Structures are given as structure tokens and as C-alpha cells.
């Protein structure tokens, strides 16, 4: 593909010839070769030139090592259809472009073609291809597909190839220096790696956040070699590592970045971990060491080969009493030892009970929950910490907890193990919290009719709502478990009256009004706690200690959900934020609208807004939450007074797709696209300062209603001054009809997508000289675009690819939900999305993409 001058032949053998004769290189030789060639390519770049011909045929094997031929190619053609071994993935779906060898000229060429791409990546990519070739003797496609080919690459070298190839947008070597750093992280490629220079291993560090995978994002932490990721949870990822000094496998838990950035948390974490490290018991996972490496806090602990009780219960659903007793007894022995030292677990659940290959049970994660909990925030944290399926009533009520909270959780766990189901089922974490706080569980004998009465009474006793009514200690429970094992009659704790307490639980029914009131109060407290958290998170303040804890309140099936808006009686089809993120408006398939106060996660009014006779396909709410405009396929555009629920119909005609209605944050100006006309109507005096006849498929407004954007058949995005009706600019980078537009609330940035899913983002601070910031192609019909206020994030809801939140500058996907078929909203700070989910709307956190 490269074009240029022919080179003079040379006597020296090429690398291609060597590979052909001798076969692939071993890893140390391959890494040394690539390192040498990368340095030569870096020197070429330093001279302002791309090499463009880095491959085995252009490397001479000399006595002094590999020598990359002098660059000769004048240009290279890359883009759609060019071989995978030549073209980086970033360019494979772009139109073909002839990239000149001069780095400056290459940049200009790519920018002119609307392609945001560092041309140095071309050479870095070729180096990745070359590394693949010298190790496997095969092409990149074979490495990507075949386990047999991949097997020829040592596991610690694969991340280098992957980063050089740029398979992942968030972990790409952009420059030769990046690649050299990645190679340095590997060491000699024998799997032993370096131990001292890992702070420089920036390339691999990028990938801590992300889906669970066996491929770890770094190769070493402190003195430990990292071999594989083996778990993932709210408290961080867990890796299997190796302690070479002591020749033992270890498990390493790395704290989430959100927590590691908080000095208070780190101090608490150290204090708790030190306390827990003193606990040595055969039924508790031993903590070996605490450490920090390149800002990453971790602790090394005993590696337990086996499975968690969660996995065991996935296989078996439920256990007999004979099977359960030894497992539970061991867990209680571990718990008793911890309680003896004053340690409370706070998150006893099947996932934290590990069963090794010999059947030994070990409790994991002691101290972590406590460490994550600020003493001053006990009410909030008491509510949200721990899995709510096992949450003790006093935790649910936000009260201070003691060791008996662990006993309640153990009671729930025993119920789960023996009955094959949890005592409570609820659709939301909030509902589950209420159930644990106030409702009696269904009698376990309903599900296990042959359960011995003594077992039932032990569980009943453990699950008492009041801590004083439970076993006084894990030791007392242990004594009863031993009694069950030995066929003796348990004492059920100090007074042996546990059964009587449970038997009296129907008396709760007599306190129903009081209980309901309490549920409402506590429920409100929880919701407010959550929404306060949400509000706090939507500010620009750094995340606070409760940020991660909130994840614990998420529905089990979706850990990203912060809270849920519940109130629609039909499936929600669209939702959007107000510009100040205080309100949201949603519409459902029964043609009703609801406005939400996000500070309380509740509907503004118990009555929905009803009036449209057909499907609603657009709705916007003002910053004061008092005005909504909506468009329906009954053809009407309505302006609603939220307080009264009254609406009036505007004279403009609603068309049949979303994206043609916008409301200013002030609630004064509404922009309407009518296929062949854009109108901006000032609702204060019902005038239409802007009325232009042109094809309009999409409109958007700035928050102050001063500027409008429209796009349509002519493939151009038009910017208007609403006040004067003047056309300010035409943005013409798109090649097809414009189907979706979003102006950032401050009016500085505009995003638009065309019929082919080509998507452009412009900086329009200088309207007469707009700048193309970035360009993506989704190859899908875009239904909604929403830019964050700072224009750093962009929500795209497309026909084929669901909902994606992009980092605008890099084009990275921060969040992708391909199951979203409705119209979601993006918070103005870009950190949350509103996603319709059945009759509800989920407030979901956008991962920060680190």
C-alpha cells in the first residue's frame, strides 16, 4: 500500500528471510527486536516523519542488531478495505485516505478528511503486527481468532500486542514511547517480569475500569505478579497473583479508584486492614499485606482454590441439613473468632463465603465494609452498605450495628441454603430494605416441610427484627449448631424463647398503620439519602465516600443503577432531564407524562399529565419544573402547566418522529421542526421570532433559548439567532440527511448525526468559523443526541446499537446499553443517564471510563 522510492538491495538478510528460515522467535528475542525497532521508529518520528514500511521485509539483521531500513515510502493509503495487517482499527471504517509520510502533512490530511487520528499510530500499529508475526509466524487475524496462534504468545506479552494493535479504544499505544513502556512492563517475556519499574507501565494501567476479564490490566502490583482477574465487585477487582519471594499464589484485591482517591478512606482502610490482618483463623481468609503501587491500593490475601457459596448454590440450589451443617458451623466458627476481636463483617452473604477444594469454609472481605464506612455517615452508610438481600433490620433502619447484624445475615443465609430461596423477594433494593426492616419472613417450613423443628427455631431466632431477640453471640449460635450435630436439644441462646418471638410476628399486623407510617418515613429517608447522593454526584464536587456505597443499593441485576423512578402505569418510552438536572419528564405508552423531582426521586404530582390522543414522542421540562412541552402523533404540540395539569395546544403541527421539539431551560421558548419549517415560539407573548421554511428533521435549543439549530434534507446543520431570526452558521460536514441534533446547554458545542449514523461534533463558539471537534460513525439511525454541558460527553441512542455515551474528545465508549430501545436522557454533567425500564425509569451512573 505504501508508495515511494525503491530501495537499494543489500546483502544483509532481512527479518522476513530469517523468520522464513528459522521460524518464529522466542519471547525475549522478539521483545528485544521490537524494542530496538521501536526506538528506530521513534527516532524517525522525532524527525517529523512516519516510516510507513515497518515490516519484516524492511528490517535487516545485522551484527549490531535489527536495523530498520531508512524510510522511503512517501505515502500510504489507509481506510476501508485495507488489509488488517496494514490498517489500524481506528481507520478501518473510514473512507480511504492517502496519508503522506510527513507527520505534519499527515495530520493535516487526516483532519481535512474529518478523521481524528494521530498518524504516528500507523507505525505503532505496524510494530504490533510485527511483534505478532515474529512470535506466532502468523498474521494478526490468526492471532485474534485462534487459541492455537494466541498460545504462541506468552500471556504477559499479549497485552503489549493488544495495546500496540489498539484493539481497545481505552488502552492504545499512541506513540512509540507508549509501546516501549509497555514492553518494559513485560520484562523478558518469560512471565517473570520486572518488579521495580512498574510505575512506568502506564499503558496497561488505563484499563482498570471495564468489564470483568481474565486478562488483567496490569502485570504487577508491588512485589506481586498479576496473573488473572478472578473477581469483580463494588469493593474492587480481585486478581490471582504470585508472590515470588514466598513462592505462593495470592489473591489481590485492588480498591476502586473512587475510594483510593479519598485520603480519609485510605486511612480507614489501612486501620481496618491492620486490625483484620491480626485475625488468624482457619475459617477466615488471611490478609497477608497491604500495599500501594502507582496510586493503586491493594491488599494481598490468602488464595482459596475452590468456589464461593454463591457458585455452590447455583449448582445445587439448596442443601440438606446434613450438607449445610458442617459448612455453616465453619462459617460461624470464623465469625465467632472475628467477633471475639470486635470485628463486624457487615456483609455476610454467600459470595463472601468461600469453600475450598477440601470443603473448608473461609469468610472473606472482613473489614472492608467497615473501612468504607465513615463513622459520621452511619445513617446513610448503615442503610446502603452490604447486599440488601441479607441486610439486618437495624442496618435497614440506619441504626448503629453490632455483631448481631452478622447473625441476622447468617440467619438469612441459612434460610437461603436450606429453602433454596431467600426469605424475601422484592423488585427494588428499597422494597427489600423495607421487608427486612418490618416484615416477617414466610415460615421456612412452607418450603422445607420436613425441616426439623430445632433448625426452624434456630433460624427464627437469628432472624428476629430486634437484635436483643437474637442469639447474643456467634459463640451461642455455635453451641447450638454443635448441639444439632450431636443430636442434642439446642438452647436457642440465653433464654431459649426465640420461637415464641417468631410465633408472635403476626402481631406486626396489628400494628399495621404504625408500620406503614414507619415504612413511609424510612422509605422517604432512604430515597432522600439516595437522591441527595445523586444530587451530590451531579455537582462538580469530587466523589464523596458514599459514592461507591450507593452501588450497593442498586437492584441486583444492575449494579450501575443509582435509584429508580417509580410511578408510571405503562411502559416508559422517553425521558429527559431539565437543563439544571433538578427535574425530569417522562412519557409512557399510555400517552401520559410525568414530571419528576430528582431531589426526592418522586413525581411532582400524583396525577400524570394526560391529554395526548396518540403516542408521545418528545417531551421537555423547564428548569423550574413548572412547564412541559410535548409532541404526540395525534399531531398536537402541547404546553403543560405542571402544577395544574392543564395544557394548551400550539398552532404548529407535530410530525411523526422524535427530535423535532425543544424547550429552553427558562421555559419561555420552544423550537419546533415541521418537516419543511423551523419555528421558534416565544411562549411569553406567543410570537414567533424565528420562522424559516426549510427541510427540518431535527431541532435543538440552547438553555437560554437564544440560539437554535436545525438540520434536514439538505445535509446541513443551520444555526440561528432566535431573537433576530438571523442564520448564523451552516455546518456542512455531514454527507446525508440530518436526523438528530443536540446543542450543549451553554451553546458552545453542537452535535449532529446524519441518516447513515455519521456523527459530528463542532465547536461553534465562533459561529462564522466553526471547528469540527470529532467525528464518529455509528452506521445506525440516530434517534437522540444529548451533549453534556461541558460537551465532553455525548449520549447517542441509535436504532441498531442502543444507547452509547461517548467521551467526545477521544471517541471512547464510556457506557453502552444495546438493550435500550427507548429515548434516554443524559444529565447535564454527563455523569448519569435516565433509562426507561419497563414502567420505571432508572437513574444510572455513567462509568468514568478510567
Amino acid at each position, binding site marked *: 500500500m505504501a508508495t515511494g522510492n525503491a530501495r537499494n538491495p543489500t546483502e544483509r538478510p532481512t527479518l522476513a528471510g530469517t523468520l522464513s528460515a528459522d521460524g518464529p522467535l522466542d519471547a525475549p528475542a522478539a521483545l528485544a527486536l521490537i524494542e530496538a525497532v521501536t526506538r528506530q521508529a521513534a527516532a524517525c518520528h522525532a524527525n517529523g516523519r512516519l516510516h510507513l514500511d515497518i515490516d519484516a521485509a524492511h528490517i535487516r539483521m545485522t551484527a549490531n542488531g535489527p536495523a530498520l531500513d531508512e524510510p522511503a515510502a512517501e505515502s500510504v493509503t489507509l481506510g476501508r478495505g485495507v488489509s488488517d495487517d496494514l490498517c489500524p482499527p481506528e481507520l478501518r471504517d473510514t473512507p480511504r485516505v492517502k496519508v503522506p509520510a510527513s507527520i505534519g502533512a499527515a495530520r493535516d490530511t487526516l483532519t481535512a478528511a474529518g478523521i481524528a487520528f494521530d498518524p504516528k499510530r500507523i507505525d505503532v500499529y505496524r510494530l504490533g503486527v510485527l511483534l505478532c508475526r515474529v512470535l506466532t509466524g502468523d498474521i494478526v487475524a490468526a492471532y485474534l481468532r*485462534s*487459541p492455537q496462534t494466541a498460545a504462541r504468545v506468552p500471556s504477559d506479552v499479549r497485552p503489549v500486542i493488544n495495546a500496540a494493535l489498539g484493539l481497545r479504544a481505552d488502552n492504545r499505544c499512541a506513540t512509540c514511547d507508549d509501546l516501549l513502556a509497555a514492553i518494559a512492563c513485560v520484562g523478558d517475556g518469560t512471565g517473570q517480569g520486572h518488579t521495580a519499574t512498574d510505575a512506568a507501565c502506564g499503558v496497561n494501567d488505563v484499563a482498570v475500569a471495564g468489564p470483568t476479564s481474565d486478562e488483567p490490566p496490569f502485570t504487577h502490583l508491588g512485589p506481586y505478579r498479576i496473573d488473572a482477574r478472578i473477581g469483580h465487585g463494588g469493593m474492587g477487582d480481585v486478581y490471582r497473583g504470585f508472590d515470588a519471594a514466598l513462592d505462593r499464589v495470592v489473591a489481590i484485591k485492588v480498591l476502586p479508584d473512587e475510594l483510593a482517591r479519598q485520603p480519609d478512606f485510605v486511612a480507614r482502610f489501612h486501620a481496618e486492614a491492620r486490625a483484620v490482618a491480626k485475625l488468624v483463623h482457619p475459617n477466615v481468609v488471611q490478609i497477608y499485606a497491604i500495599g500501594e503501587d502507582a496510586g493503586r491500593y491493594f491488599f494481598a490475601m490468602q488464595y482459596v482454590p475452590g468456589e464461593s457459596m454463591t457458585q455452590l448454590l447455583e449448582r445445587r440450589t439448596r442443601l440438606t441439613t446434613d450438607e449445610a451443617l458442617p459448612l455453616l458451623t465453619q462459617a460461624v466458627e470464623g465469625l465467632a473468632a472475628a467477633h471475639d476481636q470486635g470485628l463486624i463483617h457487615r456483609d455476610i452473604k454467600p459470595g463472601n463465603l468461600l469453600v475450598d477444594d477440601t470443603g473448608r469454609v473461609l469468610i472473606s472481605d472482613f473489614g472492608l465494609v467497615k473501612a468504607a464506612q465513615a463513622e459520621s455517615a452511619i445513617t446513610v452508610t448503615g442503610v446502603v452498605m452490604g447486599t440488601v438481600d441479607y441486610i439486618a433490620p437495624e442496618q435497614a433502619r440506619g441504626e448503629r450495628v453490632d455483631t448481631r447484624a452478622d447473625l441476622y445475615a447468617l440467619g438469612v443465609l441459612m434460610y437461603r441454603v436450606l429453602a433454596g430461596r431467600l426469605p424475601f423477594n422484592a423488585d427494588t433494593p428499597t422494597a427489600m430494605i423495607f421487608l427486612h426492616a418490618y416484615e416477617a419472613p414466610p415460615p421456612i417450613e412452607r418450603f422445607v416441610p420436613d425441616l426439623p423443628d430445632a433448625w426452624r427455631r434456630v433460624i427464627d431466632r437469628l432472624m428476629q427484627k430486634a437484635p436483643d431477640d437474637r442469639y447474643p453471640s456467634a459463640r451461642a449460635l455455635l453451641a447450638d449448631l454443635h448441639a444439632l450435630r450431636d443430636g442434642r436439644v439446642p438452647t436457642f441462646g440465653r433464654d431459649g424463647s426465640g420461637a415464641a418471638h417468631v410465633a408472635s410476628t403476626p402481631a406486626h399486623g396489628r400494628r399495621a398503620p404504625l408500620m406503614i407510617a414507619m415504612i413511609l418515613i424510612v422509605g422517604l429517608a432512604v430515597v432522600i439519602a439516595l437522591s441527595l447522593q445523586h444530587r451530590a454526584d451531579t455537582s462538580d464536587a469530587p466523589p464523596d465516600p458514599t459514592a461507591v456505597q450507593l452501588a450497593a443499593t442498586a437492584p441486583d441485576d444492575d449494579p450501575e443503577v443509582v435509584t429508580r423512578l417509580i410511578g408510571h402505569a405503562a411502559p416508559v*418510552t422517553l425521558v429527559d432531564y431539565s437543563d439544571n438536572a433538578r427535574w425530569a419528564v417522562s412519557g409512557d405508552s399510555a400517552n401520559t407524562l410525568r414530571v419528576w423531582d430528582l431531589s426526592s426521586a418522586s413525581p411532582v404530582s400524583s396525577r400524570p399529565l394526560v391529554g395526548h390522543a396518540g403516542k408521545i414522542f418528545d417531551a421537555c421540562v423547564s428548569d423550574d419544573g413548572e412547564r412541559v412541552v410535548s409532541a404526540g402523533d395525534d399531531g398536537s404540540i402541547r404546553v403543560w402547566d405542571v402544577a395544574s395539569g392543564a395544557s394548551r395546544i400550539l398552532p404548529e403541527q407535530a410530525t*411523526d418522529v422524535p427530535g423535532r421539539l425543544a424547550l429552553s431551560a427558562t421555559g419561555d421558548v420552544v423550537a419546533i421542526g415541521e418537516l419543511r419549517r423551523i419555528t421558534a415560539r416565544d411562549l411569553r407573548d406567543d410570537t414567533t421570532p424565528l420562522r424559516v421554511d426549510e427541510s427540518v428533521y431535527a431541532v435543538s435549543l440552547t438553555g437560554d433559548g437564544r440560539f437554535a439549530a436545525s438540520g434536514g434534507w439538505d445535509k446541513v446543520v443551520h444555526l440561528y439567532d432566535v431573537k433576530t431570526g438571523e442564520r448564523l452558521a451552516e455546518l456542512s460536514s455531514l454527507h446525508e440527511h440530518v436526523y438528530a441534533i443536540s446543542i450543549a446547554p451553554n451553546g458552545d458545542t453542537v452535535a449532529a448525526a446524519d441518516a447513515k449514523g455519521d456523527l459530528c461534533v463542532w465547536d461553534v463558539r465562533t459561529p462564522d468559523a466553526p471547528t469540527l471537534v470529532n467525528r464518529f460513525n455509528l452506521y*445506525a439511525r440516530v434517534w437522540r443526541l444529548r451533549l453534556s454541558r461541558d460537551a465532553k460527553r455525548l449520549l447517542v441512542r441509535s436504532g*441498531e446499537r442502543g444507547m452509547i455515551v461517548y467521551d467526545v474528545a477521544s471517541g471512547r465508549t464510556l457506557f453502552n446499553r444495546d438493550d435500550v430501545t*427507548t429515548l434516554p436522557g443524559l444529565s447535564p454533567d454527563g455523569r448519569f443517564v435516565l433509562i426507561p425500564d419497563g414502567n420505571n425509569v432508572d437513574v444510572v451512573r455513567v462509568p468514568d471510563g478510567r
Partner: protein
Amino acid sequence: MPGSWGSFVSFPPTRHTLIQRLVDRGGEADWRQFLADYWVPLCLFAERYGRLSAADAEDVAAATFEVLLRKRLLEQWASDPSAKLRTLLCAVGKHVMGTRLRTDTRRKDLMREHGRSLTDRDDLPTIKASDATDGEVDVFYGAWIEALLHNAVEGLMRSLHEQNKGDYFRVLYGRVCEGLTMRQISEALGVKLASVENYDKAVRRDLTRALESQMRQHVERYTPDKQVADEYRREWDRLGVYLKAHGGVEQVVRHVYASASPDDDPFVRDDAIQQTIDRFTDIIHQSE
């Protein structure tokens, strides 16, 4: 305008199908999409039905699209789409092959003398979709499904590597295309056997989703909004029947990849497509 909408919302059909856009002199992007959808099926059809070499099959594919353009067959088809579009393509491809065989020896002379392609010949008979026999249509359908499946698998591979889950794909490929056992894959990748089994479970589900997505996108491109749901169901059902008759989806994937070496993939024909589009651009400009 727009394509499909989700399960909750449906809007009136205002979207133009790809064929409608092509008939209205669609842009380069439309032609590229159309060729991307049918180039490989036509090549495979020509190779199998006409027993042609890969290079000759590409000539047939290029000529077929040119006949569609010059003879305004898409326009005719759009006004009366009583047969499947692929049946029309099959019929045109068959005619091109038949004509080619009759004139093969004269082809180069013809081109040299007149500077015109084979398809400019005025004596090319009127072509109707009904000219294709059921057997021919079945061959074409099989080629189309293979292309669809190939796209789904390749898209899945890219997506999984983007998510740092490349080993998921390798498990699929190793098991299906290389005939490796789970244990062999586990050893090759250095991943626990249990993880390999989990990857396998997940990637099989992902493959089905990818195939569904490919099929849905294809149907949405060529079908008016109101008919998308029904048409998709029909195509999905027919695909199920086809796959069942050919040993299941994995057997077909195996067949697809067995016919290609990674460095000479018959499913990657972007260069030829680009050349054809360039030629179309010339034709369209000449006619304007």
C-alpha cells in the same frame, strides 16, 4: 426517514428503504451499503453455480450490479416487489453468467473495441426475478446466509476484542473452526477450564445476538417500517430452517471459515467493491 424503533414505541413509516434511495439516485454511501450486502453472496453464487474462479466471480458480481443500474431493474423491482430482491439478484447474476459464457471469447475484443462493458450490450434480454429457478435461488440464499453469518462472526470478534474479551472469541473459534476441546483451549489460552466453559456459554449467546442483529439491520434496510417486524420474523424463521438443514449455526460457521484462509478471505472484497462504486459514480455522472 428512520428505521426501526424499539418494542415500546413505533412511529409511522416515513423511512425510505435502501432500494427506494437507490432508485432515487442514492449517494455513494447507499451504493456502498447495497454492494456490501450483496457483493459476497453474488461472488459465492457465481463460484458455486457457475463454477467460476474467484476473479471471474468478481467480474460477474460487478457486471450484475452494473446491469441493475443500467437497466433500471431496481426501479422496476421497487414498483412491483412481488419477489424477493435476492431472487432478482440471483436471476440477473445467472443471466450475466450465461451471457458471459456465450461471449467469453469475444469479451476482451468487445471491451477493447468499444470501450464499453459487457453490460452495455443492447441485446441483453429482459430479466425478471422469475427467471431464477428454486434451486438457483436456494444456492444464492445459502451464499447470502454465509455472508451474513461471516459478518456477524467478524463483528462479534471486533466487539469482544474491544471489550478486552478476545479470549471469548478464541474459545468460539477454537472449538468451532479448529475442532479443539475445551481442555485444549484452556491449555492454549492459559485460562481455567471453568472459565473457558463460561466463555463458551457467553459467546454462543453473543453469536446468536450478533446474527439477530445482522439480520434485523438487513431487513430494516430493505423493508418499509410497517413490514419490518413480519419480514424479520419470516427471515429469522427461514434462517432457522436453513441452519437446521445444514447442521446448525456452528456447522455453517465452520464451513464459512474452512473456505477461507485469514490472509485470503473471500468474504473481504472491499477493493473490488470500491472499484465498482468508482465505476458507478462515473456512470451516474455521465448520465446526468
